[in-house]
């Protein structure tokens, strides 16, 4: 187990990786990536039971699926720093001939990725399928997934949410990155999601509200609570309230950095707010 300070240092380095990846190619999605840095770090450093010698079938280990694939920079950074592939490879993000495509894919054989995502709304179904297979294989490990809140506007999610609730898929812990922002602005302005807690409950899910989605201890505690709720004939969702652009003052409180890279000066400012901890790639 890591101390909170060790995890915080990990998160700070992940933030630097995110910022440097998108800056280098002047493209990519820093906002949501930064908002989920703590979640990914806790999940891969503390919660999930997995082997970093990657095997697609992932038998007898926990699995994670990223549905909102555009936050690939945080996924890549955490996978690399969890031992799935060399940290130096972050240098190839979004460049030609790279395994680190703009959106995550199995196609180039990057260890740690089990499904392509990017076209939104598909990850919940995939996670349910993997959860079914775990049951059929008598594998008691869990399936985790992450989804954007704006992504819930895609109808396939609601097919999957209905299915998982009705069929009692109870080895699945889905987390919603509830930052209340999307490309065109506030989710409430684009297409309000309404009361997500009531909606998931109405579909027979167990709902955990995580108000401090950028607090390492709060995330740990929510994931622990979620694990304790598995195996009870209901799927579990964590509504994780995060701050888009967390850790970089000028990126917080706005949707402007959803899909925009910082320039040289902005990068310098952002990195100075997140001093190197584990060594840059």
């Amino acid at each position: 187990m890591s101390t909170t300070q060790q995890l915080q240092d990990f998160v700070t380095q992940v933030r630097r990786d995110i910022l440097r990846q998108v800056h280098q190619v002047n493209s990519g999605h820093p906002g949501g990536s930064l908002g989920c840095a703590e979640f990914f770090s806790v999940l891969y450093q503390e919660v999930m039971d997995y082997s970093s010698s990657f095997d697609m079938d992932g038998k007898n280990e926990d699995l994670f699926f990223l549905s909102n694939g555009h936050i690939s920079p945080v996924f890549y950074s955490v996978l690399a720093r969890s031992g799935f592939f060399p940290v130096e490879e972050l240098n190839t993000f979004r460049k030609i001939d790279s395994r680190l495509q703009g959106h995550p894919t199995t196609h180039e054989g990057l260890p740690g990725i089990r499904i392509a995502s990017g076209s939104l709304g598909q990850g919940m179904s995939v996670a349910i399928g993997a959860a079914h297979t775990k049951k059929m294989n008598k594998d008691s490990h869990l399936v985790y997934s992450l989804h954007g809140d704006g992504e819930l506007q895609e109808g396939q999610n609601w097919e999957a949410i209905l299915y998982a609730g009705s069929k009692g898929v109870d080895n699945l812990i889905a987390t919603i990155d509830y930052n209340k922002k999307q490309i065109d602005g506030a989710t409430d302005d684009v297409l309000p999601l309404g009361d997500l807690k009531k909606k998931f409950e109405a579909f027979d899910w167990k709902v955990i509200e995580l108000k401090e989605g950028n607090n390492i201890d709060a995330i740990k505690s929510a994931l622990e609570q979620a694990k304790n709720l598995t195996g009870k004939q209901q799927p579990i969702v964590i509504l994780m309230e995060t701050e888009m652009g967390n850790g970089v003052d000028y990126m917080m409180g706005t949707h402007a950095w959803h899909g925009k890279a910082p320039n040289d000066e902005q990068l310098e400012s952002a990195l100075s707010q997140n001093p190197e901890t584990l060594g840059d790639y």
Partner: protein
Amino acid sequence: MKTYKNTGNIDTRSGFGAGLAELGKTNPDVVALCADLTGSLKMDEFKDNHPDRFFQIGIAEANMIGIAAGMTIGGKIPFTGTFANFSTGRVYDQIRQSVAYSGKNVKICASHAGLTLGEDGATHQILEDLGLMKMLPGMTVINTCDYNQTKAATIAIAEHEGPVYLRFGRPKVANFTPEDQTFEIGKAVTLTEGNDVTIIATGHLVWEALEAAKALDEKGISAEVINIHTIKPLDETAILKSVRKTKCVVTAEEHNFLGGLGESVARTLTLNHPAPQEFVATEDTFGESGEPLMLLDKYGLNAKAITEKAEAVILRKE
């Protein structure tokens, strides 16, 4: 010429159901998913014998494709079943990203393809699915011609690692291929040998092609009928060997000429051995309600149409 005996009309979808039931007994990794069309897809026997490996998804095809993709992670071989229209057009992006691009071992099994779905009409009669599926990198595309071949193909695709689109149909049609056949993906079957014209047919139109060959034979024209059950990968060797001999070709499919078997054959010929070709296919149109045989006649997808196109293409030979 070699002739074939119809051992009794039966639907190709029943061949799928029989193949799936067989796989249930022989391959414990095979699982089946259905979107509220279990009876129509003839999946009941598998469902009844293996309730732990059968998943009723409800009327939610996008979710079904995603669940199937996820099930492959951990070694299952999912077979999804619904109508061809809902198996392809409705879920194209799910297949593209979660199955094809992700390289998942999902078998998309599609019934009620084409005009012969009949009375339900154009909303359900997809004539574009072969094109949609063959354009996806890595996707194997199969359209079987009768009960026996569909059963054999269903069993064979479980052994093939990678995504497969298996297309079959609703009506009772002639069953004429061998009961004990081994299905080889990507390997054309030459049904009759001939020198004057090659007829390359797939799906329900293979039997029609054999009927056309008989009619042509009576007129002194010898037709070589090739059953192309696998549209991708295409057996180019068999096609070229035949067309080098006959010097002209008719393609026949229950599909739009745009994106179908005919265009794949035309590309092969253009690149390797240009030759006159006529297309028996729908002419960039939607279908309509009606009895299957009447629809095939109205849209020019039967033995009569194949015979006429064969005579026409022979006249175009240099």
